[in-house]
């Protein structure tokens, strides 16, 4: 589980709290879809869970093997070969190095690039490579910011088949606005809105809240108008 203790995360310049004094326990053996109308807040939320950004106040404790966000690329050594990078990531996360290297090599099918420095890998292949690498390491829970697979169709198909295999036994925290994807892969819903975070055991209940939030935020794109408007459902009372 991932435990949030009175976590506050302020946006740039101290405004727009992504989380405002949130305490919650996020199960790592469930597949959670996190909905929210603010895409920036969802990205920051995933970064917080992954430890890529620290909370402004409060503490996050991870009592599970939490993945880095799917496709997270920046910590890789650009002078190292892909093989060395894969081995490093596996070693760092205490996974079977040979198994992970073999897996990425066979699934990603990057051919000669696999033994070349990462800096020579074409840009369009970097994200797909990092995506396959994320799924190659057995984590207790995977974190995905909106996208489960990147790259061309072939890569996406490969990544999704690996992903589906993984989430049979591992948890998932997926930030998304795509209800179809959430219904397909998730069994729990959560809402992230105006600094509040609320988990719903019932995914459909979370979707209903999200749709209401979206409907109240959308008309004429007027944020002020949305603030004035009465929430259409009582579920929104927690957030407005």
């Amino acid at each position, binding site marked *: *589980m991932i*435990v*949030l*203790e009175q976590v506050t995360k302020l946006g740039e310049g101290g405004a727009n709290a992504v989380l405002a004094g949130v*305490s*919650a*326990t*996020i*199960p790592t053996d469930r597949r959670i879809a996190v909905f929210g109308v603010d895409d920036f807040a969802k990205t920051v939320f995933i970064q917080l869970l*992954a*430890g*890529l*950004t*620290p909370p*402004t106040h409060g503490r996050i*404790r*991870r*009592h599970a093997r*939490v993945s*880095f966000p799917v496709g*997270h690329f*920046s*910590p890789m*050594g650009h*002078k*190292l070969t892909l093989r*060395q990078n894969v081995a*490093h*990531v596996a*070693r*760092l*996360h*205490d996974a079977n190095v040979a198994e992970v290297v073999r897996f990425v090599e066979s699934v990603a099918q990057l051919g000669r690039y696999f033994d070349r*420095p990462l800096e020579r890998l074409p840009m369009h292949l970097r994200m797909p490579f990092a995506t396959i690498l994320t799924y190659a390491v057995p984590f207790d829970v995977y974190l995905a910011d909106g996208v489960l697979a990147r790259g061309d169709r072939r890569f996406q198909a490969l990544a999704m088949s690996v992903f589906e295999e993984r989430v049979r036994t591992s948890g998932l925290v997926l930030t998304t606005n795509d209800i179809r994807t959430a219904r397909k892969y998730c069994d729990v819903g959560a809402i992230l809105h105006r600094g509040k975070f*609320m*988990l*719903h*055991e*019932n995914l459909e*209940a979370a979707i209903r809240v999200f749709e209401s939030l979206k409907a109240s935020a959308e008309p004429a794109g007027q944020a002020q108008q949305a603030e004035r408007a009465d929430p259409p459902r009582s579920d929104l009372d*927690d957030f407005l």
Partner: protein
Amino acid sequence: MAAGDFGSPSSGNLVPRMPLTTVVRRYFVIIAALLRREALLRIHSPLGSLLAIGEPTLMLLAWGIPMMLLWHRPPYGPSIMLFLATGFFPYYLFVRLSTRLWIDNPARRFAIEKPLDHAFVSTIMAVIEYAIFGFGLFASLYFLASPLACPTYALPLLGSLALTVTMGFGVGLTNVIIRKFAPWWGIIYSGLIRVGMIFSGIHVVVDTLPPEYRSLMSYNPILHMVELARLGFYPRYPHATLDVWYLVWSAIFAAFFGLVLERALRRRTEKL
């Protein structure tokens, strides 16, 4: 089940405790992985490591050759080069540690890596680099200059190097934190520490200096590192100025201060 019924942090019994052995094992796995990657990166880009050992080698030649030509007699012992090497080695080990410690920002590392892991790894890498360099340097001097290049007493030498590493780690960590707020500090510090070389007793036997200079220079902990290291090579080296406890407490204080500063300002530095 209603919204949010997943337990709260206050229900502490939900949180499983990891056995200490697992925590320690995982820590060593992370450090070993980071060390291995650093070693690979240095093999791929050896310029940094070459500079790290190139500067002391160049300084040794730049000071040693003129001193041999002008003075003929070494300040102490049979060889000018050996005398200088016993001073430059601990001094540059300290410089390396205090200027080249690094901590990547959170976006540039995996969540499993913590800031201090990077600090420890860069310290260990500097020690490995200097162990190899020191072995090569003193082995060369043993064959080319004097058999005294093989240390006679290991304890003072190892003690000096251990305290140099401890202090270098502390000062290096402090510098990393300062550089996060003021990037220009790295240039200022590099200049200051190199000027400080003159007051570190590398080129002279400190006990032969006038008392007023000696008492002033004795505030510099690097001078005590150099004096203690020389006792490993020259058993009768004059060391009236040496104050081992001053060095020990300086090293402990520097390491403690660096660690406290990093912990206290971590939230702010991680945002930068």
